[in-house]
């Protein structure tokens, strides 16, 4: 099989685009898709300072790599969740990428260690707070990324969410008719109020398979193993179902999510910001925006501390 563009030997076939690419043309395709995402969703410009949330996985490291190669000013934050060997391996991979690829291009890596800052690893915090591990992880990561973005005055925070992530999330939201969440599934979310960083998803046009291929072809050493805490997560089931549909009918995932975005354009950034401004106020503990008196992060940490103290008593 030959490359659709240059006719040399192809290394990947993309049925949803009815195309196949060699390494060089595939890299061009990936970069082009990110540029289209950034421009069409008004994510950021060349002068903006971007904070990339990296985990050691293929998506976030590929995102950091792509943004740097496209000439953007992109630093990164890694949150060590304290999941034993998994966190050690993922942090080592992030460090290696930061030293070998990012630092020579002038980029900086920030590090947050949950066990040091929150007093325990994610598994223990989840048990103490009586919450699912994935939910606890999400609360802590979102809080810390927002905090670091604001403290270091980044213009925008970028995450490695891809087309599969967004299609799976959309499927979950539709299956449960979570309409209030549908309104917030855009690839660009504004800095609605003071204390909220702008959040973007520049990989929303690319599938997990395409991003894994980009990492392999560009020798990005990422952690292949699944997070041990994610086993049995509903998102993985939704992704599996969508991939079976995609195999039988190429283009299903993009039709589903991009179609949703087109139909949902009425919910503009301005409308999201206006909604947030009427519902958000400062957390009485940490001052970050929340709809409640105390934000979910502070409630989580308070609950974990209370459980810890009662266990010791």
């Amino acid at each position: 099989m030959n490359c659709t563009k240059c006719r040399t030997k192809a290394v990947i076939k993309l049925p949803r685009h009815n195309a196949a690419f060699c390494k060089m043309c595939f890299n061009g395709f990936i970069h082009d898709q990110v540029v289209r995402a950034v421009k069409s969703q008004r994510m950021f410009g060349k002068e903006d300072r971007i904070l990339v949330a990296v985990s050691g996985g293929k998506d976030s490291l590929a995102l950091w790599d792509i943004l740097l190669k496209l000439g953007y000013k992109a630093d990164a934050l890694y949150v060590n969740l304290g999941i034993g060997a998994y966190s050690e391996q993922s942090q080592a991979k992030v460090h290696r990428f930061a030293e070998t690829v990012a630092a020579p291009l002038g980029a900086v890596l920030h590090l947050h260690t949950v066990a040091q800052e929150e007093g325990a690893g994610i598994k223990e915090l989840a048990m103490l707070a009586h919450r699912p591990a994935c939910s606890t992880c999400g609360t802590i990561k979102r809080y810390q990324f927002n905090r670091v973005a604001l403290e270091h005055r980044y213009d925008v925070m970028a995450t490695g969410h891809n087309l599969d992530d967004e299609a799976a999330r959309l499927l979950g939201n539709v299956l449960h008719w979570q309409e209030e969440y549908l309104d917030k599934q855009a690839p660009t979310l504004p800095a609605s109020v003071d204390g909220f960083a702008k959040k973007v998803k520049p990989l929303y046009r690319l599938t997990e398979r395409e991003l894994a291929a980009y990492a392999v072809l560009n020798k990005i050493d990422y952690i292949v193993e699944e997070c041990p805490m994610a086993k049995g997560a509903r998102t993985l089931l939704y992704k599996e179902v969508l991939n079976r549909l995609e195999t039988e009918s190429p283009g299903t995932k993009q039709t589903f999510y991009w179609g949703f975005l087109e139909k949902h354009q009425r919910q503009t950034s301005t409308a999201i910001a206006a909604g947030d401004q009427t519902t958000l106020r400062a957390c009485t503990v940490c001052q970050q925006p929340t709809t409640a008196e105390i934000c979910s992060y502070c409630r989580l940490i308070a609950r974990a501390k209370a459980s810890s103290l009662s266990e010791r008593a």
Partner: protein
Amino acid sequence: MIALMFIQLSHPPRTVEVKGPKKAKDVLRDLNLVVEAHLVIRGDELVTEDELLSDDDQVEIRPVISGGSAPVEAHVSSLT
């Protein structure tokens, strides 16, 4: 001695032996793996699913699915 290709799989990590020659997509089908959720890597080179794999090839079939966060996420609820 019969030559076989060695296929390295993940989740859990294991190796299976398959008689070649065989196209990558046929190997995936025989192992009940979905093309859209996997990459086929021969040696350290990515190959398309139409590539013919031969005996003695070292092949890795790498899953591409990751993630485990809750299926729903709201911007506002991220801090609430």
